[in-house]
């Protein structure tokens, strides 16, 4: 059973466009992380959000944790080809275990 569903599954956009990736669950998480994974590499942490309603910004990336701590979103402004990759959310449940989402594969065309 996949607890964290991400949408869309695939996204191909032109350089300069904006996009939003969603991470949804019916379960509550004590914290949520977003990772980016490039081909042939392991995931790399982008951000951790802990408080319901929390918004964090990392340059052109904006992360939001839902008020009920069941969902999250990642918004990218003016996407660049370097943003291409697999974006993964990971929710922390109970005993320090992170459950990864289904992933969103983003391709930004120059």
């Amino acid at each position, binding site marked *: 059973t*996949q607890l*964290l569903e*991400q949408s869309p599954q695939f996204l191909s956009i032109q350089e300069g466009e904006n996009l939003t990736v969603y991470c949804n669950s019916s379960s509550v998480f*004590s*914290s949520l*992380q977003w990772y980016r994974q490039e081909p*042939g*590499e*392991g*995931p*790399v*942490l982008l951000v*951790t959000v*802990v408080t319901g309603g929390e918004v964090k910004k990392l340059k052109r990336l904006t992360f939001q944790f839902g008020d009920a701590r069941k969902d999250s979103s990642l918004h990218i402004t003016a996407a660049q080809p370097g943003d291409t990759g697999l974006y*993964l959310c*990971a929710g*922390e449940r109970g*005993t*320090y*275990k*992170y*459950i*990864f*989402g*289904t*992933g969103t*594969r983003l391709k930004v065309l120059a």
Partner: protein
Amino acid sequence: EAGVAQSPRYKIIEKRQSVAFWCNPISGHATLYWYQQILGQGPKLLIQFQNNGVVDDSQLPKDRFSAERLKGVDSTLKIQPAKLEDSAVYLCASSLVQGGTEAFFGQGTRLTVV
């Protein structure tokens, strides 16, 4: 600072054969994770160690998968016998402590079972 080291990078075996993967975490990291990532999906946690003790192995297929972390440092993951559906990337990650902290991932081992 050296990252998480995994070997081998690639492995091709026939079904019913056995295979082992090795992971050396970042020095001083107490928590070590093994994940299975099937192509196009998010990683699935197989087993989590805290030092040399198992914290969670609820999703480890124990009839064919085993893992150990002797002396609380390096870890090995073994599959015996392998099935076609075991084809995946096996990722090792480590973190300083449990919970709410960054997990650092290795490059993974891509296993193909034919």
